[in-house]
């Protein structure tokens, strides 16, 4: 029997959902018009007023928001309410220039945590489960989101944050954790460590894992499931929209259900900006229908995927998105393996590095080489050569676990990675093919 956290919303009829979205969109556009001068100006430039937006079918009239807008509006330009009403911020890593700082009211936090609780229930969690949250805590949204969701559900929450792998495994065993939340690359690493320690799936109390915040393959899913004896679920989100839980997998695992009572999804052609029909590949665009403090309207995620409204046998009626392929314009093929810079970035963040990196691909004697140059930070630097070499080695292992190919890791001086127009040059491909 499929269980839901909020059955009345998660299994709501399509008609009712559209009515709800129409009502919320009208309200949200008025809110933004009145409270976010940056977006109001964009609307005025596009010749649209709130009166033009009556239903979700009118959404195509509204201007898009991009990461570039958020950078221009940094830090308060997109704020939709008085700072006094905000209770928290989270922030992106700032890899492509300035960080995005997202503000939250208590209402924003509540709806986000509901979304995460829905994902946990969809992965089989109940209030009797022990949920270990091994996502990083802090400015990163991963830890806070799943932690909050687990609280809402009433599960015993173990907020280990990332790192200290031995301690992670100790807690999983000693507290009999049944649900693990972390990035898939960290799950792979944990699984390897457990294997090295001689633990078999029977020794591991975990039954499910929710793994997101980075791109991962079906192959990785099967490896994690097999080595830990669990079912692995994908989760999707981005800081701009709140964090993880914008969409999540149900037991069917045929795409991720988007929490579309809060986040209205569209797929557009990234070149013509035309809205595309369901089941067509394009760029995912979101409108946050309820968020007060950081109300994103038609925010371009740059993630390439498809949407489907075909009925899901889990009973949830919400639209499903396919696993994003990552940004198509960024993909590299190294030794026959598809590599997205974002995957490397994710590993760096997991391992506690600032995501100031550069990827250098070359071809030596007919074989591709991959070098990842990472800027040293004052936090990481120690006077001990051995410790720094160990950090290098750990990072190499983590990149290998994520990509399936080996990379050389070089630690470089701060600000030594070339930047052009404020943006770091992430990839240097020296191959002459």
């Amino acid at each position, binding site marked *: 029997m499929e269980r839901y956290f909020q059955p009345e919303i998660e299994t709501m009829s399509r008609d009712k959902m559209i009515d709800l979205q129409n009502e919320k969109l009208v309200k949200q556009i008025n809110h933004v018009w009145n409270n976010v001068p940056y977006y109001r100006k964009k609307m005025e430039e596009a010749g649209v007023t709130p009166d033009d937006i009556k239903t979700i079918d009118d959404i195509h009239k509204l201007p898009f928001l991009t990461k570039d807008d958020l950078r221009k509006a940094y830090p308060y330009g997109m704020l939709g309410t008085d700072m006094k009403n905000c209770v928290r911020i989270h922030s992106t890593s700032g890899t492509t220039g300035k960080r995005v700082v997202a503000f939250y009211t208590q209402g924003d936090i509540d709806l986000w945590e509901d979304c995460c609780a829905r994902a946990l229930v969809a992965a089989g969690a109940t209030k009797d489960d022990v949920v270990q949250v091994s996502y990083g805590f802090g400015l990163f949204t991963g830890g806070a989101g799943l932690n909050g969701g687990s609280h809402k559900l009433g599960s015993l929450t173990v907020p280990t944050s990332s790192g200290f792998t031995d301690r992670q495994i100790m807690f999983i065993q000693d507290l009999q954790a049944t649900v693990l939340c972390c990035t898939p690359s960290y799950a792979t690493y944990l699984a390897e460590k457990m294997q090295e320690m001689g633990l078999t799936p029977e020794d591991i109390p975990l039954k499910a894992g929710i793994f997101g915040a980075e791109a991962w393959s079906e192959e990785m899913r099967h490896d994690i499931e097999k080595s830990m004896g669990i079912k692995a679920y994908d989760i999707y989100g981005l800081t701009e929209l709140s964090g993880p839980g914008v969409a999540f997998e149900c037991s069917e695992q045929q795409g991720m259900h988007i929490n579309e009572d809060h986040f209205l999804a569209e797929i557009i052609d990234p070149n013509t900006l035309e809205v595309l029909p369901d089941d067509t590949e394009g760029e995912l665009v979101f409108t946050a229908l309820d968020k007060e403090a950081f109300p994103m309207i038609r925010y371009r995620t740059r993630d390439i995927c498809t949407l489907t409204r075909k009925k899901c046998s889990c009973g949830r009626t919400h639209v499903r998105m396919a696993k994003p392929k990552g940004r198509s314009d960024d993909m590299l093929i190294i030794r026959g393996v598809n590599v997205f810079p974002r995957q490397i970035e994710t590993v760096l963040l997991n391992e506690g590095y600032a995501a100031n990196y550069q990827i250098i691909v070359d071809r030596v004697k007919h074989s591709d080489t991959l070098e990842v140059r990472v800027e*040293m930070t*004052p936090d990481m630097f*120690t*006077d001990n050569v051995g410790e720094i070499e160990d950090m290098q080695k750990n990072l190499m292992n983590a990149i290998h676990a994520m990509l399936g190919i080996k990379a050389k890791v*070089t*630690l*470089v*001086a701060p*600000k030594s990675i070339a930047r052009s127009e404020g943006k770091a040059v992430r990839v240097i491909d020296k191959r002459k093919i």
Partner: protein
Amino acid sequence: MSVKQISVFLENRPGTLQSMTAVLAAKGIDMRALSLAETKDFGIARLIVDDVMEAMTVLSDDDFIAKTTSVLCVEVPDVPGGLDKLLQVFAKENVNLEYMYAFLGAKNIDKAYMIIRTSDTRAAEQKLKKTGLKLLSQHDIANI
């Protein structure tokens, strides 16, 4: 009585050490001692200077990654067996040395100075004190 050593992260390629010395030279920082630890990719320059605060400020202003570490500075007579006498103390007391380097004083030509990093600076300091060997303070360093 420990002293502050400055450790600086340097990439292992031509010119990086000089870019650091240029910054220090421009501000008139006087180096008492210098040691380099290197690997294939990077190195750590360890310095003892007359003005730690000023050196740290100019280095970080120029985007160098620098940290201070507590080390011991011990005066030994510059004669055969001088260092051995010091090391006997550590061997006997089972103190582990992480690294060590030496410099000569400008004023006291019959003395040598050992910069010593141990895993437990405080414990090593206590043990050395009992032997009557002279430990230098930050103030002493600036004046030798």
